């Protein structure tokens, strides 16, 4: 019996202690008509050897293409120490630190994480992770509506250059509570949020404005202007940021005159493998004044009965297990282990390491952009500074080009045609510090061949 330690003698003795004739008898309160006798559709069990061979074969089938996709999940180098620490049984197989005295390892690391993320984003407090970047944004939107006592509108201004999935998740998550989302268009020339479009909301009531920095196109926003506009309208500002970019970019706490109110983002770039989309972690930081509206767990430093410092979950009265229907969120299990990976990553990189990763990623993307736009038929779509991804237009439909690149072992980027049809055949492509000059060359070379072939066909 895999993973079940019971010997026949154990079972006999245990049943005797219970006073039951059989294990079957322990299910005698279940209406017999409901019982199933077997699970014929589930395949028979495999040994570890067999299952590992199966998984290795499937992994081999998928291979390891050279990937230039970003779009919200980024291939950064993960130091070997990160996952050798994170998978230690004491971290990996513990649960939420309800028993603080027996969980100081997890608790202290969360406190360290909170400190790092608050500082990175320029805010005062941080929670112990949400599910992912998109759900963190959805939670931020709900939180902003709760926190903004001045506004009665439950109306959120959301830029169209925010990640389309984030917009979809916010909609699916918050619309049941009657929130309204207003889309802010972007400037066709720069890819930035249109200040002109924003000015149409002048004088109106809205709860919050969302700002993505860098935005989905990799373009840097004029965050000060956006922030000040919202604050001038009594709205809160929610920043959706890339944590690695923040090594170089002004932290949201310093945007505009007063700084934003809530910062969220995807923690994946900090030490989490791409892993087809998860597990990642959503982060959220805010100002102390909003902390009681913040969802998720929070760790505080306190003292024990002997006066020695220690760490414990705090402000639990916000949470579902205490406040139930009135909680700030229903979140319970979060993404703790990934947050730990992020903490170890940040500790290993430090401020300078993170800056270098960010700088090199920007540089590589600039090189990529140069190399690809040197290919006939490829152009940059937006002018101006960009962080580690860039939108390019092709003179052919994108999908077959990506497919042809795929056949050469290259994942060229994300086809934007479905998300932003107005851009025509456009491609969002990305290079981080993991891409070498040779990688970029081989992409450019392959692309020029593929486009040439497409034109010839």
């Amino acid at each position: 019996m895999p993973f079940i330690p019971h010997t026949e003698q154990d079972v006999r003795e245990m049943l005797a202690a219970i006073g039951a004739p059989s294990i079957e008898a322990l299910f005698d309160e279940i209406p017999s008509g409901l019982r199933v006798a077997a699970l014929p559709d589930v395949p028979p069990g495999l040994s570890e050897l067999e299952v590992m061979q199966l998984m290795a074969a499937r992994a081999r089938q998928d291979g390891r293409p050279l990937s230039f996709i970003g779009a919200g999940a980024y291939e950064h180098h993960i130091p070997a120490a990160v996952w050798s620490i994170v998978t230690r049984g004491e971290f990996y197989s513990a649960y939420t630190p309800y028993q603080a005295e027996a969980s100081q390892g997890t608790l202290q690391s969360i406190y360290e994480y909170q400190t790092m993320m608050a500082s990175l984003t320029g805010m005062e407090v941080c929670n112990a992770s949400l599910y992912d970047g998109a759900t963190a944004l959805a939670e931020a939107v709900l939180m902003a509506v709760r926190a903004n006592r001045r506004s009665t509108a439950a109306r959120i201004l959301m830029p169209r250059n925010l990640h389309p999935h984030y917009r979809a998740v916010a909609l699916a998550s918050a619309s049941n509570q009657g929130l309204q989302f207003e889309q802010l268009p972007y400037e066709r020339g720069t890819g930035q949020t249109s200040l002109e479009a924003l000015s149409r909301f002048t004088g109106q009531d809205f709860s919050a404005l969302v700002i993505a920095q860098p935005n989905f196109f990799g373009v840097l926003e004029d965050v000060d202007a956006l922030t000040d506009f919202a604050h001038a309208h009594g709205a809160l500002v929610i920043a959706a940021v890339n944590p690695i970019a923040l090594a170089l970019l002004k932290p949201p706490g310093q945007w505009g005159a007063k700084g934003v109110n809530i910062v969220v983002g995807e923690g994946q770039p900090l030490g989490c493998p791409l892993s087809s989309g998860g597990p990642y972690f959503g982060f959220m930081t805010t100002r102390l004044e909003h902390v009681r509206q913040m969802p998720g767990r929070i760790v505080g430093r306190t003292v024990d009965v002997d006066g020695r410092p220690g760490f414990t979950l705090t402000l639990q009265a916000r949470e579902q297990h205490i406040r139930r229907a009135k909680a700030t969120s229903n979140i319970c299990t979060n993404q703790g282990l990934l947050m730990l990976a992020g903490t170890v990553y940040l500790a290993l990189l430090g401020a300078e390491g993170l800056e270098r990763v960010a700088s090199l990623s920007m540089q590589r993307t600039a090189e990529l952009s140069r190399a690809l736009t040197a290919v006939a038929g490829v152009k940059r779509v937006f002018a101006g500074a960009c962080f580690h991804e860039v939108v390019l237009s092709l003179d052919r439909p994108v999908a077959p080009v990506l497919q042809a690149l795929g056949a050469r072992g290259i994942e060229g980027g994300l086809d934007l045609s479905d998300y932003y049809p107005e851009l025509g055949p456009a491609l969002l492509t990305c290079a981080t510090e993991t891409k070498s000059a040779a990688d970029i060359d081989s992409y450019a070379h392959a692309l020029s061949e593929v486009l040439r072939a497409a034109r010839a066909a």
Partner: protein
Amino acid sequence: MREPLIFQLSRPGRGARAQWPPTVSAPAVPEGLRRTQRPLLPEVSELDVVRHYTRLSQLNYSIDTHFYPLGSCTMKYNPRACNAAAMLPEFAGRHPLSSPASGQGFLACLYELQEMLMSVTGMRGVALSPLAGAHGEFAGVAMIRAYHRSRSDMQRNEIIVPQAAHGTNPATASMCGCIAREVAVGPDGDVDLAALSAAVGAKTAGIMLTNPSTLGVFERRIEEVARIVHQAGGLLYYDGANLNAILGKVRPGDMAFDAIHMNLHKTFSTPHGGGGPGAGAVGVAARLTPFLPVPIVARESSAENGTAASYRWLTERDLPQSIGRLTSFAGNAGVLLRAYVYMRMLGREGMQRVGEYATLNANYLAARLTQLGYDAAYPQRRASHEFILTLKRQAHECGITAMDVAKRLLDLGFHAPTTYFPLLISECLLIEPTETESKQTLDAFVAAMAQVLREAQQEPEQLRRAPHSLPVRRLDDVRAARELDLTYKSTDG
């Protein structure tokens, strides 16, 4: 030995430099957008980091080091093969937006996982993307709302939850814009049917139940519950947190549930990771399949040309009535792979044994502990995979609390059971041993509980002042909440 904060190890100019990319040209960030002050990240060596977090890890109790009978959390052994498979470089390195063509192996695993989850739950459709139990609850209630809306049954905005429900249930109702309405539980632990009948009506969107319930007993009149709710036009939601109890014995679909979530991090043994990640796959009966969240994996067999099946993502385009997208990408894929590997190792017989031995362990422990003199909350009932002790009597007689018992157990080398949940039962311990623990371990726990009881009677101070032997003694939670200290400041020293 106390471990300092990582910031206290920091020294200006130190760094784990093997992790630094070589110097690069100054980045082209426009003036006004540039960061001017470095964030407070530690400046430490790689050894500092490894030693610090290794030492911190040793301060934790965990399944790998201690018996961890935390009720409602199913802290069973997490097979290491699951991690090894999910971390294979091809899986770990795959981008979520990679083309399905380069992910057929991965998608095959997810598709088969969907199929197996349907088989074991008796549901007709499954979506894997929700990221934890509560997220699955959200998806479920959102689907129920979408269903009523699709029938223009707009006024249904009440979600019924039993008194003892987990906090995520009412919180989920609120997040979905519904009103949570509690119904009473009878003295036998089953839902009070009269109260339920009185509660349902034209505003009833549905009911959220776990079965076995959070009281550790099987809701025997589940068929009547279903009839009452369905007849009132409501749907039934199954909170799968307790699925471990009945795996392979009875299926939510057969109990007439319309929507369910499964906590893969409980029943299917993916690691709890000190708080997460989880995975809260949802399953639905036929009438809710159009509303499932996207993406979902579909299989297309090209029967005509005899080639192998191929897999692709279904999106809003394929499922126009979907409640939409709930996650940045496709869910906690790495967790799903771990669950897949676990399920394949168990296989059909192994899954049935899960429910059997989880139940055996709980009933054994309940029998032994009540024989010692502890009071079961529902002494007349079979335990499911977990059970509740109430220390009301000991609280009264010895002046100790459930918390005192919990803390003393830590001293004795056991993680504490869940305390003070469900709120319905005063001074309670919710104890879930899981099927992966041996009789010897349970016996050792019984011995510890015997010692605790003896101490409660003879030297209650031992309990009240516990823990004695952990890295810290009992912490001042009140101070933690009053004098918020949530981040280290460089001025803290």
